[in-house]
């Protein structure tokens, strides 16, 4: 073995190091779980958070360094784009773990299984963010998804949770079929599954219908994962049925990872076809945010409302891809980062207000909470206003960048639809706030169990939401630099 090979070998593992760290952490959690007697399962979350922290540290140092991003014969690309998403995903996972400690104990979820599955699924997401090859995309997507399928059904005694898991799995399998079919079409048309090779092949040869068909099917696959209309039907049922912490995990981490791969496949693999996909994506974006927002209006369950809201936000985020420009890409990255904090926060408060057998996730349950739990109500207000896009919260800045990017790209009509949608969304985001401060009722008891981990999670989400809203310039530069590395 020559010295050169050693260097290449090292580079390969270097690229995969964050994901490897997460996988090893998952193993460690499994082993510790075996060693532990009952009680003290908070240790598992601590181990998981440490492992994710290590992954973040590795990713940050790789982001700051300037090594060759390509690894494993260019099947992985540990470029700044991928590393940015790695960091966002790991932070989401860590927040999820923080949020789960008390939840897992109170709802008597199998702690070892829960933490292991979250971590393994996270590893799949990291690979998804780095994947530069459609086969890797598929494998990573499945790694991520299988974990989440199981997580959704983890409340084994709860019918709705079982139903959620089953539905998600069935439709997910359906969507994976389409994705794989699309990959096959690409391979047939271009002779490769590697994104840059596909791009070259498409540029070289006249356009073949197989390529377009492959694109349509890949789009179906991703559309399912990020919940675009008309592939969103599973979302409300699954989000509502799954344990709330899993819902939060799905809404932020799964969505970020799927968007990472989605954008990379279309921007790196199919830039030649941009004229073919921007039009369609803008229609899907408009449909998705409109349906998501309109249907959210009539929801009485806050959890279900947040499910529809997450559909609508997928529509907003898609604008960054429609813009097909560096500012659009940077805005997409920024928005997904912002979305993590405000959405985790909203779900966190929802969990904090409920307890086993008394979920308190209906709108009426929130009546009067503003006076019995002023701090939680304040946090909820900040998160909801951020989701609605009210300054000075982060959601406003995120939307501002997205909307101005699509306007600069010439899609003024689409921006207009997005603004109207934002206005509609204010209505249902204000619903819980109005209930909390103006409603009268005793849905949530004055005394709640002490949950320091959960409160820490909410506090971090609050800091993130406010920080990204008030000091957006620095993080936005990071997002722009990350997007700039995408090739």
């Amino acid at each position: 073995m020559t010295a050169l090979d050693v260097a290449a070998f090292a580079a390969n593992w270097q690229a995969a190091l964050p994901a490897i760290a997460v996988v090893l952490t998952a193993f460690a959690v499994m082993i510790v779980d075996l060693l532990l007697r009952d009680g003290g399962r908070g240790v598992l979350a601590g181990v998981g958070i440490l492992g994710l922290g290590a992954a973040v540290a590795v990713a940050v140092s790789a982001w700051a360094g300037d090594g060759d991003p390509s690894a494993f014969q260019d099947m992985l690309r540990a470029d700044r784009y991928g590393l940015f998403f790695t960091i966002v995903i790991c932070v989401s996972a860590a927040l999820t773990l923080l949020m789960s400690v008390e939840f897992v104990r109170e709802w008597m979820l199998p702690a070892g299984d829960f933490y292991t599955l979250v971590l393994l699924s996270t590893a799949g997401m990291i690979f998804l963010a780095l994947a530069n090859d459609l086969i890797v995309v598929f494998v990573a997507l499945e790694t991520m998804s299988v974990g989440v399928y199981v997580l959704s059904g983890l409340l084994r005694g709860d019918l709705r949770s079982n139903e959620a898991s089953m539905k998600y799995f069935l439709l997910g399998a359906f969507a994976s079929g389409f994705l794989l079919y699309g990959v096959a079409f690409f391979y047939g048309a271009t002779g490769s599954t590697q994104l840059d090779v596909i791009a070259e092949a498409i540029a070289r040869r006249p356009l073949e219908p197989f390529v377009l068909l492959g694109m349509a099917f890949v789009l179906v696959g991703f559309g399912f994962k990020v919940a675009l209309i008309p592939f969103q039907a599973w979302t409300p049922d699954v989000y509502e049925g799954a344990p709330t912490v899993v819902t939060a995990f799905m809404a932020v981490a799964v969505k970020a990872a799927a968007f990472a791969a989605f954008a990379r496949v279309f921007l790196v693999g199919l830039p030649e076809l941009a004229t073919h996909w921007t039009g369609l994506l803008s229609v899907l974006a408009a449909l998705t945010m409109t349906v998501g927002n309109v249907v959210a209006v009539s929801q009485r369950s806050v959890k279900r409302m947040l499910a529809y809201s997450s559909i609508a936000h997928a529509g907003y985020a898609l604008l960054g891809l429609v813009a097909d420009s560096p500012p659009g890409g940077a805005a997409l990255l920024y928005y997904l980062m912002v979305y993590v904090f405000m959405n985790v926060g909203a779900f966190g408060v929802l969990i904090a207000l409920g307890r086993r057998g008394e979920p308190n996730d209906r709108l009426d349950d929130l009546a009067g909470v503003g006076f019995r739990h002023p701090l939680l109500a304040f946090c909820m207000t900040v998160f909801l206003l951020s989701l609605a896009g009210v300054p000075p919260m982060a959601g406003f800045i995120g939307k501002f960048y997205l909307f101005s990017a699509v306007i600069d790209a010439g899609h003024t009509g689409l921006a207009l639809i997005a603004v109207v949608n934002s206005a509609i969304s204010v209505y249902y985001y204000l619903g819980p706030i109005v209930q909390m401060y103006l409603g009268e009722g005793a849905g949530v008891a004055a005394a709640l169990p002490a949950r320091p981990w959960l409160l820490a999670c909410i506090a971090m989400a609050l800091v993130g939401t406010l920080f990204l809203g008030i000091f957006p310039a620095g993080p936005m530069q990071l997002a722009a630099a990350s997007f700039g590395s995408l090739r």
Partner: protein
Amino acid sequence: MVNVVATDALRWIVLFPALGFLWNLFLGRRLPGSAKLVGPGVLLAAFVAAVFAVLELHALPEHSALQDVMFPWVHVGTLKVDAAFWLDPLSAVMVLVVTGVGFLIHLYSLGYMAHDPDVPRYFTYLNLFVTAMLILVLADNLLLLFVGWEGVGLCSYLLVGFWWTKDENCTAGKKAMLANRVGDACFLVGLFLLIQFAGTLDWTGLAQQQVDGLRTATLGGWSVPLLVCLLLLIGATGKSAQIPLYVWLPDAMAGPTPVSALIHAATMVTAGVYLTSRLHGLYALAPGALEAVAVVGAVTALFAATIAVAQTDIKKVLAYSTISQLGYMFLGVGVGLPGAAIFHLVTHAFFKGLLFLCAGSVMHAMGGEQDMRRMGGLWRKIPITFATMAVGTLAIAGVPPLSGFWSKDEIIWGAFAGPRAHPLLGVVGYVAAGLTAFYMGRLMCLTFFGSSRVDHHTEEHLHESPPVMTIPLIVLAVLAAVGGWLPVPAVVEQVTGAVHLEHAPLAALAVAVTLAVGGLVLAWGLYVTNPALPDRIAAALGGFYRLVRDKYRIDELYDRIIYRPVLAMADAAAWVVDRTLIDGIVNGVGTFVVSTSGAWRRVQTGNVQHYALSFLAGALALATYYLVG
């Protein structure tokens, strides 16, 4: 050129009352005793800080100014406005008046408001007012000045309606707010024009512009400097209660009397005079603008003095008197003598502040009575109040050697002999001066002399005010007596430019003294010697008397030509535009969204086969789109 010296001493002057405001706002209710200490205490601290700053300024050579730049504020394009304070002789005079007289009035409030349960709220507003007023007079640019300008307006509104449980007090507060809105809107437009055409708002920059391009700029055929000056003048007539926007001030007497003394006599209402003096260079650029100022001032001085003659409410007399005296100040600025105008502003702060506090002391003794027809013969019962009020009356009437004589005489003589003199303005000044002496004499006679018309119950409780109230009276009386020797005009003219004015000839002084003494004597003759005579005169004058007594029915006129039409328009807008058009669209969209939303919920069956079907349909649609399209 002004020699600008950087400092950080000025922010402290503003900081103390600001801290007092915060203390009283957040802790006043929890530590109820503390407001009485903190409220006046911060004013004393601000006064001391102001004295130190003025001494620092005094140590500098002539034509110097202290500048305290706190932080860059608005930097947009070429416009650069900093949050900065500016102390030159003109603002020094204002700061000393605001903090000094302000402190005395705060002190007096301790006694006057002693039985009010809401003292913390009172001092919260009062401290906030002083904060805003200091920002106004210390601002180094027009934008920061406007912050203070709006701040004092807000506090005026809050304090006029301080006893908010009575409907008329709230109405008076709203009236003050609305009349000032008209002026402030014009002020803002003037400000925008300056940004557009001068590109700068600070005093040094505006002084520069006097030489540069602004003079010749036009907008739609109008000279821009003239437009700006007239718009700012309308703003000033709002804040300083001049024709046509004076109507709010008499109603503003609904507030506590120390508030009338501080805000509606000594400080806030002089903001317009300060503004026009401060921008004297700008006004000099616009032919016609200063003339407009002079005419507004002279007409207001005379007009308000005639109304004061026929009022029976002691505070209303003083309110119209204030409007009239402010008219003198505008006249002074208008004839090119801002030094004299500021001089009168200072002496007026002394004697009118004093007169209001004395009126408050009378009301305090009388259990809140304000109607002079139910007073009389009080001088034995409340001797300190009587003596100090007599000093104030002699001062405002213009009897030498008290302060009012010197400052008023300088303005009236300036109207005859100043840089922009017009004899008619001087004559108006003399007539108003005679009326001033008469209505003040009338007030004194009705209140303190003649036979007592006090009812039996009140008579028993008559008492002199406590020392915390009488000491400020005595201090202000001394100031009102000797304030005429302050070298205010010379100090102010360091900023506004020196004006050479001949000394008034002896004949002019003789006329002034004759009018002052004559007015007082006439009042004595009518209201003490022959108390039946005034009613007969009033009867003989008939309709004219009633017209004056009813304040020329200007309120009724405004009600007809402005209030009702505007209200009708608002009603029309509310019913036609808002209810049908805007609400229609909003509700229509809402109803549509909610019904669509409900329909979609039925599509969401929960049946996984249906979901898969819709999924498949979507996939087929995409494929078809690409293959066919």
